[in-house]
């Protein structure tokens, strides 16, 4: 029995220490959602908590859908998503929510062709034709006429796509639906779709793996994956008729291109954006926060963090292969942050 008492005392002492540690740690802000911005958010939380020791973050990258579910249920202080919430999803919310854009990403077309360098030119119709299974050979005249001087092999095109539901697929299929009516009517857009052809890989790494392992393969991945794996990427003809290579600058240009028509709630698709340098398959990623915060202290800390994220935070984006939000859009976001209140009192 003595032993048990000793063990109990030990447990109690540990509990006391733990609860003391919590007491000394005033604010823990919980969030959940998108996996795409996770590396950026981790960096932000780390840097911000270092500069502001009173605030700690706990972020679970469970996917955009999961983030929306958690913020709807109120189990987290903020959500994160790569696809704006639909009207149906917003109808289930207990209160008004704000979409705060934090970063931009690009989806790029990667391929594996021996002796063909990076930058193979494609038009929206050629890309849709490939993913619809209508263009099946690499030396198809439709590809060849865009790439005079490039020797294209007489090889089968092996299409690779995401097998898991993902925001990357959402942006890619939204783009194809926007630029090609055939795609829109037969396949449509969504986080997962009924692909007419091709192999499914799980995650960006899965698609990158299929493309790297299969000669003649073509697929789509986030820009960061293509860069890190040094894959050949296609150059796409954008809305203004220019062939553009996917870069961080070209991605930011897409947001600048729609800046004038940016809706007040930032729920906007950036695919096929205007602007002569715009990369056409770009997208925003958002943090989701309630307009009226239940807990004034947490709400205040969250707003302070967001103010920091859209200014100082943007400087960390390029190093992690995210495109920064252009300054005019940052000014608009700043105005939105002023709308966040707690019990009617502004928190900005």
């Amino acid at each position, binding site marked *: 029995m003595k032993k048990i008492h000793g063990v109990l005392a030990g447990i109690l002492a540990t509990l006391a220490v733990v609860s003391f540690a919590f007491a000394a740690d005033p604010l823990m802000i919980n969030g959940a959602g998108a996996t795409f911005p996770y590396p950026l958010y981790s960096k932000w939380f780390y840097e911000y908590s270092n500069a502001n020791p009173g605030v700690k973050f706990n972020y679970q990258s469970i*996917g955009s859908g999961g983030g929306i579910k958690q913020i709807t249920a109120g189990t987290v202080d903020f959500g994160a998503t790569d696809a704006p919430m639909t009207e149906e999803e917003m109808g289930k919310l207990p209160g008004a929510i704000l979409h705060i854009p934090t970063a931009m990403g690009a989806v790029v077309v990667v391929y594996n062709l021996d002796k063909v360098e990076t930058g193979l030119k494609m038009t929206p119709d050629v890309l849709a034709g490939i993913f619809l299974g209508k263009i099946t050979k690499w030396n198809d005249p439709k590809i060849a006429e865009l790439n005079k001087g490039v020797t294209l092999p007489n090889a089968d095109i092996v299409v690779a796509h995401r*097998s898991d539901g993902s925001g990357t697929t959402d942006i890619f299929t939204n783009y194809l639906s926007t630029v090609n009516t055939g795609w829109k009517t037969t*396949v449509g857009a969504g986080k997962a779709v*009924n692909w007419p052809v091709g192999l*499914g890989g799980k995650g960006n790494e*899965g698609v990158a*793996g299929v493309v790297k*392992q299969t000669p003649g393969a073509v697929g789509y991945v986030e820009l960061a994956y293509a860069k890190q794996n040094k894959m050949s990427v296609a150059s796409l003809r954008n809305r203004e008729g220019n062939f553009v290579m996917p870069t961080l600058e070209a991605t930011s240009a897409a947001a600048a291109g729609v800046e004038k028509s940016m809706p007040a709630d930032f729920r906007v698709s950036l695919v096929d954006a205007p602007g002569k340098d715009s990369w056409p398959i770009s997208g925003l990623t958002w943090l989701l926060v309630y307009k009226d915060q239940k807990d004034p202290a947490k709400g205040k800390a969250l707003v302070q963090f967001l103010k920091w994220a859209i200014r100082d935070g943007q400087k960390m984006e390029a190093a992690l292969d995210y495109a920064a939000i252009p300054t005019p859009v940052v000014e608009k976001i700043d105005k939105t942050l002023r709308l966040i209140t707690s019990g009617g009192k502004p928190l900005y």
Partner: protein
Amino acid sequence: MATRSGRNPKDLAFEKASAFFAFVVLFLAALLFAVLLRESLPALRKFGARFLVSGTWDPVADQFGALPFIYGTLVSSFLAILIAVPLSVGAAIFIDEFAPPWLKKPVSFLAELLAAIPSVIYGLWGIFILVPVLRDYLMKPVTKYLGWIPLFKGPAYGPSVLAAGVLLSIMIVPFILSVSREVLATVPQRQKEAVLSLGGTRWEMLRIVIGQHCIPGIFGATVLGLGRALGETMAVTMVIGNRPEIFLSVFQQGYSMAAVIANEFNEAGGIQLSSLILIGLLLFLVTFVVNLAAKWILSKMVAHASRGI
């Protein structure tokens, strides 16, 4: 103590406690079934029996059917059994009957070690080694010369139902192997010696002994392997190609029930989520039916085998 075990209060308490744990297991199984059923009701109501025979999986149009997934699961598991059973039984016989003592330990140790490798590692190995090797040295030549046979029709991309079957077979070998060895060990030494003393060769001895004694046990081992193959998720997802269509050719892509759940569950909502859970329920039922059928066949076999001796 031993004679009054039922009356002893400590034993009684132990009996009650162990009964409680047994019921917890039963309760968990029932709860699992109930939750799966409840969550899959919207899809059951919307699609009904059509869900079983429809080959469409279209999250955009909200049309779902499970047939390609059931097909992919069964075919890849069947291929795995087809490869793994001869391999495991052959290896078991070698280790127990022919292998020199210095080889016995390392071979059986390494074979059992295969069971300890996480399935995601098998999947990665599948993507980077197995799939390219199968594609370049098996699928490409076979489609070139035997491509007219529907079973081997190209094009050979690599990720395929065959790749999933081969990978699964490697994963289930340790299970079938170790159970087969235990079954072989139950054969009385005297029975073996009797066959040899009558002038039988080693082959005849094994054939008679295994035919008489070991078939039910090996069948049981096969079912154990099959159960594992049916539910395997990660490794299959990584090599099967994730294409919800039914192709006769084993060189074409497929999809499995566990794989589609793992792939789409995270971002699914509404009727898609319910359909995924319905697939989970079906997988539960498929595994249940396979095991039940196996138990029944096994009981017949055991009865038959014991009559034969």
